[in-house]
Each structure stands twice: as structure tokens, then as C-alpha cells.
């Protein structure tokens, strides 16, 4: 809302400098975002919050200045010029759809002379950035910016049957507006029609057909209240926003409708000549809701944390045109003025008191009881995962949850169903919520490659979205990573991550997701459920993303481990006695997996077994075809003594025996 300093001072005799007033307004909730000074005037650009349509006018802002500075507000008294013949002889009004138009008024001025505006009027409308059109149109704009009530002037001679009908449009009816745009209407749009057709979109814009022109002689002035939801719906659907629709959407003051009509009539006769017809065409109720609201001093203190003297609260409310209706030493009852539709209950009055008194009068003073901020399991688990990943050289990413395209449909390990699609992204009809983070990370790696940052190791912790039969989709928290490192290196990081989040008994099983390279892919199982996957990205996807090198990818359902109490590490006694270390080279069939060898050794019941680790894998001579040699390192140890060579030998013999029996392994 643009407001002119000169114009404001028509209603309030403020002596303070404009910069001071701008500050006070800002600190009262009318944020002055810009001050534009010209030699003649100062223009404020003020951000008006959507709850205060009464501030969309110079009188409304002047009322605030008056309250802040303890000054009087002067609203001009309207003196209607001597009237001509009765208005009913000149025009007729019908309002069949009164549900969308609680009040409609029409006045007629005959014999006006359309001409450029006089200098004072032109300066007024130009001071707030409007274009001067002609005297009658400028007057309607002037009065709207004066009091907040939008007005419209029709050329009465162009209204078929000299008739105004406020009705819903007939579906398919068309209208060409003043700005030359043509629109097709539906039966939920409210229009102003003449005897034949729509001549204005109610509360939004007038039609071109009945526009005031140079030859206009008789003017019909509309001042009305339209249903705010109806205006908003039509304006949004047609993509039109005007000064009028902006005000009607937020709600105009029904008690200002007649004042604005009379004010317009007075000014038209004064400036454009002609004769005002006697009376007004009117359908509807002119008296607004004026609820009584009680303000208890105890509540002021409960909310604001300070005591405000009751006299001060009464002065503040009266300065804002609330009418004192009684009270007691502890409370005040006020009647809310009709232009304050936002004030419905006590809390609204408390805000008014705080606003005018100044939020800066409330101290920075905590009376809050001591409380402990507790760490959420999600914070703990996420930070543990991120600690491992960043230590391994990975960068954390944040990429869009809303995605498009086949890449994201192909990488969908967690569901076979279609992704969750999203409406209202014009130009992106294919938008859906990603079912995996991996696709995004591949694109991040690609972006970095394109910018000469090769081999970016990246991760993201975020939700994915999976279709569900519940009201809301499943939204598990995932951690995903993409790296140029090979499968074993990637797996080592993933294993360390699981350890960090306290996940036990996690198993890797071969799997065949189509986006992972055959034979280099594993699903990660815990509690009989897939909690993650890891693998080399299939070459077809490496190519489609146009990555320079192959990558390993992994994704883990982090949220799955959040509900578990995190592993609290229990101390394990440091071994004081030396272990006996043995390297074993086992020849086994190709199909025998490392996990089987380990579980076989662990299940052998060897008393002194301390640890098993992998050394290497060998295929080729002299190992027969179809077999492989697995080198492993075992440590035997006793917590009570140094083992003898014989004890170690016996343990080793036990293990080798079982390996031979269960897996057909032989020692090389």
C-alpha cells in the first residue's frame, strides 16, 4: 500500500517528521518498506498484513498515526449537493444473489462533463503511483484510497434498460473487461449485469462496454460489499488481481459503503458538474457486526508478562475507535467498530494494547522453569552416521525431494508401485516424490564432474516417500551414498556405519536389482527385513547419467534403527596374554561364501578362537578349476594364560576338521 505524506496529513495534524512516523508505524505493525521523497511529497510503501484491510486506506493509516501520537483523526464530513429528481426514475436495481452481495448501493449523477482532473486531484492519485484517467475515474480511485471502499462508475446510458442486476453468471457467459481481456464465466462467478448481459465482474473489474468515456453524461456510481470468498475465488481462477479485488477479498467495512457513495457523489458534482439524483438505490443491510469483547487485566498480564494500567488500555482502545461499553476495576468491555472484522476475542484486544504501547516495553525476562533439552534418537543416529561418512571423505548433500524423469523411476528398490505424484507444478506435470535418494546423488556427482570436480563422494540423509494404503505415504528416513570406490571399500564404510548406529546382526545377501550390476549387488537384511542395499551401479545407468566412471551406491533405512535403544558399548577387558596367530589357506569350491566359512569356524566350538579376518582370495594354478583358495588369519587366545603351541595346534585342527567336514575345505 502506497501512502502519501501530504494526503495522510489531511486527516491527522502530525507534527513529527516523516521518518519518525515511518519508524513508529513500522514498530506498530505497518512495516514501512520504502520511503520515496520528491520535492513536493513523501511516499511510504507500507506492507499491510492480510488481517488489516482497514489499513488499505489513508484514513486507516491516519487513524493509526493519531493513536500512536495521541492526536485527533479528522474524517471529512460529506455535504451532499442539492438533489435533482428521484434516483428511482433514472435506474433500477435488483439483487437476486444477495448471499454473495450483502449490500449494494447505487447513486446517479446526471449531466456530468468528463474532463481531465484538476491539478490537486491529479497530484493526489499520482502521488501514490496511479495514472490519472479523467475526473470521474480519478474520483473513484481517490475515494477508494481515502477510505478503503472500492467504487465503480458506469456510463448509465450504456446500461441496457438502465438496469443493474447483481447475479451469478450463466455458465458460458462472456465479458470483456476494461483492460480488454475477454473471459468466459461460470455460474459461481458474481457479475453486475444490465438488462442484457454482464457489465462488470463484481468486485474485480468493470466491463469495457459500460466504461466511462469522454461522451459520458450520466454516471451510475456503485458502492457495495461483495462476499470475500466469492471475489477471491473468481479473481484467482481468472488470474486477475486489482486494487478492488484485493480489498474485497480481505473484507471491506459495510458501514463505509454509504459514506463512500456520498463522498463520490459530492466530489463528482463539485469537479465534473451535473446534478445528483435524490436518494440512493439500495439492497442489503448497512449496519455491521459490532461485537462486544471483554478485556481482563489478568489476561493482559498472563500474555504479555507485564502490568498495563487499566486506564492506559482504555485510552489505547478508544484511540483506535473501540467504544467503551463498561467494565470494572479489573476489566473493560468494548464495542468493536465495524471496520475491525479481525477483532473477535480478548486476545485480539491484548494485541492492540501491546502494539500501541510498543513491544519494546515488554522486557527480555524469562520466568520459564528450568527444563532439559533432550536429544532425539533421530539426531543421535543421524549424527553417528554422518560422523562415519564425513570421516571417510563424503560430503553431505541436500537435494530436491520433488523429482521428474525415468532415472528416479528406475531406482526404486523400496517399492514396486508408482511413486507419489504431486499436483500444481506448472510445466512439471511429471513431478513425483522420490522413492530413493540414490538418483539425486548420481546427478550431484554428475554436476560436480561437469564442473571439473572429479570423483565426488557424496551422501544425503533425507526421507523417501513410498505409496501406502494409509492417509499419508510411508516416509522413512534414509541415508544414501555414492562413491567412486569399489564394492569392498564401499562395503567397509557401510559396515562401519552400521556399527556406529548400533545395528547388530546385519547380513548381506546377493540380490538382483535391475539398477545394480549383476553379481555385484547385495541387499542388507536385519530382523528378516531389507534395511538397505549396496552395489555397483549398472553400466546402463552409468551411461544414461553420463558419468565418467562406474560408482558404488548404497542406501540404508536409517529410521529403521531409530526406535531401538542405541548400543551402549560395554567395556571389553584388554587381553594381557599374547595370542597365537595362524594364517590358513583353504581350498574350497567356488560356491562357498566367506560368510559360510566364518559361521563354520565360529560354530566349531573352538575354545580359544579370538578373531577371524580375511587376507586374500586366489584363483588359478595350482588350484583346480571350480575351486578357489581363501587365505585367512585367525588368532587364538586365552584370557588366563599364554597358549602353548599344542593348544593352538589342537584348536586349529578342530577348525580345519569342521571346515573339511561341512564345506569340503582342504588346507593348501
Amino acid at each position, binding site marked *: 500500500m502506497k501512502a502519501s505524506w501530504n494526503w495522510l496529513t489531511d486527516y491527522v495534524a502530525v507534527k513529527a517528521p516523516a521518518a519518525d512516523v515511518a519508524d513508529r508505524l*513500522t*514498530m506498530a*505493525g505497518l512495516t514501512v518498506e520504502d520511503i520515496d521523497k520528491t520535492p513536493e511529497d513523501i511516499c511510504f510503501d507500507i506492507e499491510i*498484513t*492480510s*488481517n*488489516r484491510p482497514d489499513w488499505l486506506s489513508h484514513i486507516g493509516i491516519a487513524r493509526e498515526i493519531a493513536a500512536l501520537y495521541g492526536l485527533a483523526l479528522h474524517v471529512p464530513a460529506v455535504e451532499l449537493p442539492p438533489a435533482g429528481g428521484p434516483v428511482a426514475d433514472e435506474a433500477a436495481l435488483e439483487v437476486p444473489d444477495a448471499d454473495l452481495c450483502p449490500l449494494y448501493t447505487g447513486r446517479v449523477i446526471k449531466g456530468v462533463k468528463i474532463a481531465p482532473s484538476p491539478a490537486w486531484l491529479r497530484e493526489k492519485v499520482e502521488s501514490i503511483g496511479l495514472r490519472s484517467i479523467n475526473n470521474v475515474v480519478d474520483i473513484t480511485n481517490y475515494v477508494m484510497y481515502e477510505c478503503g471502499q472500492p467504487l465503480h462508475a458506469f456510463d448509465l446510458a450504456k446500461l441496457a434498460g438502465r438496469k443493474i442486476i447483481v447475479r451469478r453468471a450463466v455458465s458460458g457467459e462472456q465479458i470483456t473487461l476494461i483492460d480488454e481481456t475477454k473471459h468466459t464465466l461460470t455460474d459461481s462467478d458474481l457479475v453486475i449485469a444490465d438488462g442484457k448481459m454482464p457489465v462488470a465482474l463484481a468486485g474485480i473489474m468493470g466491463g469495457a462496454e459500460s466504461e466511462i468515456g469522454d461522451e459520458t453524461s450520466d454516471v451510475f456510481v456503485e458502492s457495495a460489499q461483495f462476499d470475500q*470468498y466469492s471475489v477471491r475465488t473468481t479473481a484467482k481462477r481468472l488470474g486477475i488481481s486489482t486494487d478492488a479485488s484485493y480489498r474485497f477479498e*480481505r473484507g471491506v467495512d459495510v458501514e463505509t459503503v454509504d459514506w463512500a457513495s456520498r463522498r463520490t457523489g459530492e466530489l463528482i458534482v463539485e469537479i465534473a458538474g451535473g446534478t445528483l439524483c435524490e436518494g440512493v438505490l439500495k439492497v442489503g443491510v448497512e449496519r455491521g457486526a459490532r461485537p462486544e469483547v471483554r478485556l481482563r487485566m489478568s489476561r493482559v498480564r*498472563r*500474555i*504479555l*508478562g507485564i502490568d498495563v494500567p487499566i486506564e492506559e488500555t482504555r485510552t489505547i482502545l478508544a484511540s483506535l475507535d473501540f467504544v467503551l461499553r463498561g467494565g470494572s476495576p479489573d476489566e473493560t468491555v468494548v464495542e468493536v467498530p465495524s471496520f475491525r472484522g479481525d477483532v473477535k*476475542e480478548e*486476545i485480539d484486544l491484548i*494485541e492492540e494494547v*501491546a502494539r500501541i504501547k510498543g*513491544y519494546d516495553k*515488554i522486557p*527480555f*525476562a*524469562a*520466568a*520459564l*522453569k528450568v*527444563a*532439559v*533439552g*533432550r*536429544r*532425539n534418537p*533421530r*539426531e543421535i543416529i543421524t*549424527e553417528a552416521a*554422518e560422523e562415519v561418512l564425513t*570421516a571417510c*571423505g563424503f*560430503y*553431505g*548433500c*541436500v*537435494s*530436491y525431494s*520433488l523429482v521428474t524423469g525415468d532415472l528416479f523411476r528406475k531406482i526404486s528398490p523400496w517399492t514396486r508401485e508408482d511413486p*507419489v*505424484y*504431486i*499436483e500444481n*507444478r506448472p510445466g512439471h506435470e511429471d513431478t513425483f516424490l522420490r522413492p530413493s535418494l540414490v538418483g539425486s546423488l548420481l546427478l550431484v556427482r554428475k554436476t560436480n564432474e561437469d*564442473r571439473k570436480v572429479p570423483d565426488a563422494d*557424496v*551422501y544425503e540423509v533425507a526421507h523417501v*516417500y513410498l505409496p501406502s494404503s494409509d492417509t*499419508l*505415504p510411508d*516416509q522413512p528416513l534414509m541415508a544414501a551414498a555414492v562413491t567412486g570406490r569399489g564394492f569392498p571399500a564401499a562395503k567397509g564404510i557401510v559396515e562401519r556405519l552400521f556399527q556406529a548406529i548400533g545395528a547388530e546382526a546385519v547380513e548381506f545377501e546377493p540380490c538382483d536389482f535391475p539398477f545394480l550390476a549383476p553379481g555385484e549387488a547385495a541387499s542388507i537384511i536385519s530382523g528378516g527385513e531389507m534395511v538397505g542395499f549396496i552395489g555397483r551401479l549398472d553400466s546402463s545407468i552409468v551411461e544414461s547419467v553420463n558419468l565418467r566412471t562406474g560408482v558404488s551406491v548404497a542406501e540404508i533405512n536409517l529410521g529403521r534403527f531409530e526406535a531401538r535403544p542405541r548400543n551402549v558399548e560395554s567395556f571389553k577387558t584388554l587381553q594381557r596374554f*599374547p595370542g597365537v596367530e595362524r594364517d590358513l589357506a583353504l581350498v574350497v569350491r567356488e560356491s562357498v561364501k566367506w560368510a559360510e566359512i566364518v559361521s563354520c569356524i565360529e560354530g566349531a566350538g573352538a575354545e580359544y578362537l579370538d578373531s577371524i579376518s580375511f587376507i586374500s582370495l586366489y584363483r588359478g594354478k595350482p588350484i583346480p578349476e571350480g575351486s578357489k583358495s581363501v587365505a585367512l588369519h585367525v588368532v587364538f587366545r586365552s584370557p588366563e594364560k*599364554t597358549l*602353548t*603351541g599344542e593348544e593352538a595346534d589342537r584348536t586349529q585342527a578342530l577348525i580345519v576338521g569342521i571346515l573339511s567336514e561341512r564345506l569340503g575345505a582342504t588346507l593348501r
Partner: protein
Amino acid sequence: MGDIKTSIEKVHAAAVDEFAAAGDESSLESVRVRYLGRKGRVRDLMGTLGTLSPEERPEAGRLINDLKSRIARLHDEKSAALGASAGGEKPSPETLDVTLPGTPVRLGRIHPIARAAREIVRIFAGMGFSAVYGPEVETVHNNFECLNMPLDHPSRDAFETFFVRDRSDVVLRSHTSPVQIRAMLASKPPLRIVVPGRTYRPDTVDATHSFMFDQIEGLAVGTDVTMADLKFCLNEFGKAYFGPEVTTRFRPHFFPFTEPSAEMDVSCIFCGGKGCRVCGNGWIEVLGCGMVHPNVLRAVNYDPEEYTGFAFGMGIERLSMIKHQINDLRLFFENDIRFLSQF
């Protein structure tokens, strides 16, 4: 046992001589193989263990292992000495340029949004707020209706929303405030929470807009929570996040879910509040806040006569942009390592 001890010491003495005699890398290597190789003298000693009684074996084994490391040390020392005299690995004080960069260490970083969120959560944890989380795909009921935002009200204009296809009751949350509702429904006052998370609004992407951004929401409800508490906590937050020298101011504003509502500005961290190119008038807007609207308390069956509360919300990217002078919101979502490695 005595025999083997003697043998060990003999081997060691011989090794000392031979390593001392080695004059270059290749003779050093052959000495190493002679003692430490697969068929070396240490290995030979190991082979004699079998001749000992079981009681003697562990001790003898330990002595042989000991010998092995003593010989390895002889080798390393000689190797280093040879390298130094050849002007190799061990530089003399004159040739080491200490200003040369150290060997790079490859460490990753968490994302600046995650870093800022952690920092903010920790500041509020110090004032008794615990982090809670809620779903990003949310019901219209929680996202709007419980927050005193009736359908088709202009107050929803600032909260344009993505809808899930074919569902008029499910949206991508346009703010983190619905988690307030979930938290209040899940427990009784007193309550002090902060809610970090992603939010979505159908904005066109540019330097200051994004259809996805991160917020942190806060809520304190109790029998005695006032606007003075709100001002204290948020003023402390401003100083903790931006620096102890900043001051704050609270301007009245409008949010449907709080009343009285305010926006908090901090004194400009670049010019100290004098006014500059960044701030204009000396103040930078950082968050919205207010006392919880009675209708919101009613929506979760809290009696507004018994309980009061304050709430606040802030954009994480915005705070991070101010603090680090980042000039383009899109940088957060491009994930260029050159950007990510700066924070």
C-alpha cells in the same frame, strides 16, 4: 632351554655385525632376507621349538619373536641411515621447506543446512527445548485447519501448497508448524520443542526463492509462559547464533496461528546497525514469532484459560545466508563440492 637362549643371542650378535657392514641398499636387502626371510635364521630358530618340552615352548617363542623385532629395528635404522646419506627420504634441516603444504587429508563435511540446523537445535536445547520431527507429507487438517487457517482465507496466500495428486486432503507441508499440532496432541503441557525439517511451497526457483526449503519451528507451552519469555529466549538465540554484540527488536506482524504476533530483526552483523547495502536500515529480519493463538490451543484440546505459549519459526537457509554472506539460495541445492567444502 639354555641352548636356545644362547643360539638366539648368537644370531643377534651376528646380525648386529652384518647389518653394520651392509654398505648399500642391495646388500642390506640380502642381509634382511638372510635373517628375516622365509628361510632365514629367525625362521630356523622357530623350527627348533618342536624339540623343546611343552613347558619351555611359550617362553622360547616369546624370545624368538623378541629377536625378530630387534632385528627388524636393526634393519630399519640401517635403512634410514643409508637413505639419509644418499640425500633420500630424511631431509637435512636446510632442504626441508616447512612452508610446503602438508599431505592433504580427505575429510568430508556435513551440509551447511545440516550444520546450521544442528547449531540452532543446540542453542535451544540449552534453553530446555527438545527436537521433535514430523512427516513432510501432511494432512490439510494439520497443515492449515488446526493452525487457525480456514479454507480460502487470504492468509493462506503466503502458504501456497503442493497437493498430492488426486488427494484434496494431503499436501506437502508448507511449514513445520503442523508438527506443533502433532506434538501437542501427543503430550500434555508443559512442552518445549524445536522442529527442524524440510518444507515446500510452489515458488519459482531464483536467488531467494525455492520450492523446497528448511525451517526450524519452536513451541513452548505451560501455565506461565508470557511474551517476556518469548523475547528472552529469542533474544538469547539471536546473540548465540549471530554473536553476542547483536541486539534484537520485535515488530508487530500477523500470523494466523499466533497472537500477538511479531517479526524479530537483529541488528545488522555487517555494519553494526548503522545501515548498509545488506540491511538498508540497520536491521535484518530473521524470524516470525508470537503467542500461540487460543484457537490453536483449542484445536488440540488445551484450555487457553489454563495454558499459554509462544511459538516461532525461521528459515534455516536464510539464517545461514545472512551469517555466511551467501548470495544465492540455489547454491544449497546444487551441492557443488567447492561450495560444500567452505562450511
